[in-house]
């Protein structure tokens, strides 16, 4: 008890210094929490891709080269019973924009009969599925996209595709996919796109890429090789990857954000260590005679070190708490919730990330107090007391 009182007195006798140290630790921790939230978001996205046991089949030469529409039937014929290869979904990217709005969309046309089975993580309600099957102009918009553009279920929207047919296409929003991991993509019937293209005079029907849902990891491995083998030595050879590898290729090309943000987080933690170490070394210097007196009175070196460590731990933990709580509250309970970030669109600051940040703050405190605590433990009482001014 007495020791706690001593700790408390020490912390409050230079309140300005305690406050500044807390702040100097809190701000880097804030950056850590923000950066790692982005990284975790990307990883969650990729993990979801991996869990879905899907393969992406693209043209071997380049993703922009479309594949023949007949490939779906050929791939399906690899497993006619549909027990290992559950569904094949042809997909076409049209990008798209809304008239008078510079923000680009990511709209994809998918085979409507297999979309529901291939992308079960959208968890559409039976009503939504019925709507999707009934209306060929149906479109599912990601939750973040819906919020950005102010769309809700039942709205009619017009999208200008960035690819042929280059003419406005009308859709009806049937779901805002609130439970999907991908908050940004828009899905509509590929058949509708094919018809629009045919009307505008684009005859040839080809498909951008295929997504294939497999029953198990073993089947995934099997079909990855089997599909490429099926189309080997044809005019349009394929490149089959699992969905995570497919997505990761795009992400690493975007400034390699996950890796670079991790580096940034590490650098800021380093800054926090420096700032905290500065305070602890100043405290140590100011209280040199006091610590020497304690030792002269018979307190052991370990206790004196522990006092310094405890003070550091307290300062850094409070700093860490403030630094983690700030973004947690801001991104979960204020309008900042709708703030969009590259790649994952929505910053999801989770309690687990904040908890990790607190642990790191504790780690910072240990590092910061290491040198003063060691000095204190080894301090020669006679020299220290003699040096008193």
């Amino acid at each position, binding site marked *: 008890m007495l020791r706690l009182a001593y700790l408390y007195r020490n912390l409050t006798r230079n309140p*300005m*210094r305690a406050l*500044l*140290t807390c*702040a*100097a630790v*809190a*701000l*880097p921790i*804030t*950056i850590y929490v*923000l950066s790692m939230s982005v990284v975790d978001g990307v990883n969650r996205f990729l993990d979801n891709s991996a869990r879905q046991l899907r393969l992406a089949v693209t*043209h*071997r*030469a*380049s*993703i*922009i*080269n479309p594949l023949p529409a007949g490939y779906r039937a050929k791939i399906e014929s690899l497993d006619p019973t549909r027990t290992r290869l559950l569904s094949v979904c042809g997909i076409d990217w049209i*990008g798209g*924009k809304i008239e008078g709005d510079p923000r*680009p969309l990511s709209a994809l046309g998918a085979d409507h009969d297999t979309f529901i089975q291939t992308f079960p993580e959208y968890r559409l309600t039976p009503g939504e599925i019925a709507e999707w099957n009934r209306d060929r102009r149906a479109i599912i918009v990601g939750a973040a996209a819906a919020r950005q553009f102010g769309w809700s279920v039942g709205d009619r929207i017009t999208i*200008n*595709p*960035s*690819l*042929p047919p*280059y*003419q406005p296409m009308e859709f009806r929003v049937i779901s805002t996919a609130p439970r999907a991991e991908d908050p940004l993509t828009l899905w509509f019937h590929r058949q509708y796109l094919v018809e629009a293209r045919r009307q505008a005079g684009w005859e040839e029907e080809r498909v951008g890429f295929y997504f294939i849902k497999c029953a198990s990891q073993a089947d995934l491995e099997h079909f990855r090789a089997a599909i490429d083998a099926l189309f080997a030595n044809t*005019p*349009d*050879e394929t490149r089959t990857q699992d969905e995570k590898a497919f997505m990761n*290729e*795009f992400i*690493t*090309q*975007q*400034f390699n954000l996950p890796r670079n943000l991790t580096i*940034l987080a590490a*650098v*800021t933690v*380093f*800054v*926090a260590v*420096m*700032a905290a*170490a*500065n*305070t602890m*070394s*100043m405290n140590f*210097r*100011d209280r040199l005679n006091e610590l020497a007196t304690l030792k002269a009175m018979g307190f052991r070196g370990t206790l004196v070190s522990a006092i310094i460590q405890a003070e550091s731990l307290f300062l850094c933990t409070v700093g860490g708490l403030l630094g983690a709580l700030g973004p947690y509250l801001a991104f979960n309970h204020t309008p900042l919730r709708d703030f969009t970030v*590259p790649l994952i669109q929505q910053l999801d600051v989770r309690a687990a990330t904040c908890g990790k940040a607190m642990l790191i703050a504790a780690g910072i405190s240990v590092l910061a107090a290491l040198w003063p605590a060691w000095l204190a433990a080894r301090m020669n009482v006679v020299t220290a007391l003699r040096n008193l001014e």
Partner: protein
Amino acid sequence: MALPISYNWRNLFVRKLSTALTFTVVTVVVFVLAVLLSFAEGIRASLSSSGSRANILVLKPGSTAEGTSIILPEEYARLPQTPGVARGPDGRPLISRELYVQTSIPRRGPGGAPANVAVRGVEDTAFAVHDEVRLVEGRMFEPGALEVIVGRAARDRYRNLELGGEIPLGRLGHRTCRVVGVFEARGGAFESEIWAPLTLLFDAYARRFVSSAALRLEDPAAAQAAVAYVNGPAVNLEARLETDYYRELSAKTREIVVLTTILVGIMGVGAAFAVANTMYAAVDGRRREIAMLRTIGFPRGSIMAAFVVESLLICMAACAAGLGLSLLVNGVRQDFLSEATWTVLAYELRVTPRTLVAALATAGCVGLLGAMAPALRAARTGVIEALRKA
């Protein structure tokens, strides 16, 4: 009467550890700022030197980039009538038909991930229209041969693009082309591309249409009329200044600058707190000294200035160190995948005068903000009490 600067300088070495730690904190902040900005500066430098103000770029209405645009032969045929188009020595209009495709090439270095590199099919007129493009190594491709020339940035960043290297092109990847030349384009976006004869790409990709057309104007002032003509019913395509097109692509750099400002802003405030902490300690440790200075006649202002100068000395030294460190990344080649074109732009990280100004401003603000409150406390030191305590 001001205190001599050597007084500040020598004071910094009284508390070596504190000074060193504060110095490190500010150095790291400046370093992070400079590195983050060097990404934006590199991209900006590359895209702002892309294109010419005398050129207009024609795309299909609705398409957002060259890669998604399709211009059919009958649409292209309407372009030569555009008013103000320059003519070459042979009297033909300077219009460059271009086909824009992409191919996947691994980056150099171990484990280099594949990148989508742009391949542009061009005719002879392209070199009159894009007059910034000039060969620096090797020779021009021969029409009819399976030969390409590559930009300098692409050669440095991607595998097998050196002179004599071979890359597979074509819809089926079955046309193996040899690199016979390397070109420069004032550091612009073309340098990240591979250029091939248009007929070669027509054949290899089984295309009968082009992606875009670039028109050279006699007078840049006539651009508006030409753009209006192309956008109008006579042609019904979408034209814009080439420079505007690349400015739009550089929108990404604004994102980086915003992100940098937020991150470095937070770090900077943190650093200011660290500096303030150090300066408070310096003030508290020198109360008697300050009182003494006041007694022998130094006014409050000089005392205050002395502490501000001391803080600025640390921060400016740290600024220099941080910038020095950031020079290590200067010139490192990076690339990014543009969301509009789905092809990569290879650029060099650049530490520019703009970075220097931003670093100085940040370090200056950190130093000033950090020193203000402690310096005020120093100036308010009560002379009698401070001396009596001794």
